[in-house]
């Protein structure tokens, strides 16, 4: 319609003039509403958030440490007493990780105890072997002795992934006596605790 109005020559009558005005207004009106779409853009935003909780995990879930015969052989005055070399220096490796800077590690050692002879050891004998357990991870060491109940002090290990090496040392019997025959069982419990990292994104 715009092209047709422009091709009509000569003087226009009223109705034609009104038609043209109407056409012009229509054009102006059309221009007024169409112009912003070509000259200005607007943005819409979708905010995306997420979080990773502090966590620790052992990926090597088990290790056993059989020490074999614990008493000294022979017939001298040390025969039948604890052979410390069978315990000290023995180690096992766990594997784990923590993903937060505040992660800690603690160790609790439980003495080797005779599971076959549960009565109090007679004079001159022992049925308990104490030791110190050390867990090394991320260049940090956590220790605990089985002499006292409870875990040792926690150490900060932060973010790490890799080996957690558990080593035994300082083995001894309470009375330095002869070991009562039987099977001895103990354990070392290593705990990785994530705690709370700072600068976490809001949940």
């Amino acid at each position, binding site marked *: 319609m715009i092209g047709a109005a422009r091709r009509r020559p000569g003087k226009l009558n009223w109705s034609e003039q009104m038609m043209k005005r109407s056409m012009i207004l229509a054009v102006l009106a059309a221009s007024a509403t169409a112009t912003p779409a070509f000259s200005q853009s607007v943005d819409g935003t979708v905010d995306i958030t997420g979080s990773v909780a502090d966590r620790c995990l052992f990926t090597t879930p088990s290790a056993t440490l059989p020490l074999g015969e614990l008493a000294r052989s022979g017939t001298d005055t040390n*025969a039948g007493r604890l052979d410390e070399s069978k315990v000290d220096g023995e180690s096992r490796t766990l594997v784990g990780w923590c993903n937060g800077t505040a992660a800690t590690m603690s160790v609790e050692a439980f003495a080797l105890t005779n599971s076959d*002879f549960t009565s109090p050891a007679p004079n001159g004998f022992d049925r308990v072997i104490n030791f110190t357990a050390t867990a090394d991870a991320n260049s940090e060491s956590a220790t605990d002795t089985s002499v006292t109940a409870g875990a040792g002090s926690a150490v900060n290990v932060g973010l790490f992934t890799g080996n957690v090496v558990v080593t035994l040392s300082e083995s001894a019997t309470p009375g330095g006596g002869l070991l*009562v*025959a039987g099977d001895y069982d103990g*354990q070392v419990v*290593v705990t990785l605790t994530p705690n*709370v990292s700072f600068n976490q994104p809001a949940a």
Partner: protein
Amino acid sequence: MMRHFALLAVLAAAPIGVANAQDGSDQETVPISGTVAGICVLGPPSQTAVDLGQMINMSGPDAGRIAPLAAQEVTLPDSFCNFAGTHISVSADALLADDSTTVQPGFARAVNFTSTVTNWATGDATVTTAATAGGAMPTAEASGGTQPLPRIADLELTLNNFTVPSNLRLVAGAYAGSVTITLGPAAAPEGN
């Protein structure tokens, strides 16, 4: 008032965050095991040989017959068994003359004696040899009571009651006997 509400909200949120973090902890156990074999050890005897010296009367109405001999004691210190259910066994061989030829009538070539091991369990291990004049059947054995606990003790071996069969005269020569003490389980383990 609005500040108070905001503060409460922060305090309430903090424990929740800690609890969630604690759930992410992990714990691993390294079981440790070992064994101690059952053993018994006899301490070194206070004397490894007992010399009775001259055993006969050299004069008088009993000349040539066994003289009263003093008791002999041997200590085995710090003998032990590290398990329960043990006992002492003692095996004794009568003193016999080196000369093994048949003895003439009225003579003997054997000296019997009593061996007693004490301080292990209720019921000492005691045995008396009963060799014949000619030296036959010189060995005797016996066991003591059972010790119900692991024990460490100084064992005492006493040799006494030296006699000759029928109190016959002893043939001349060197005499030798022995006592063997065994410390071990009172009963063989099952399956053996």
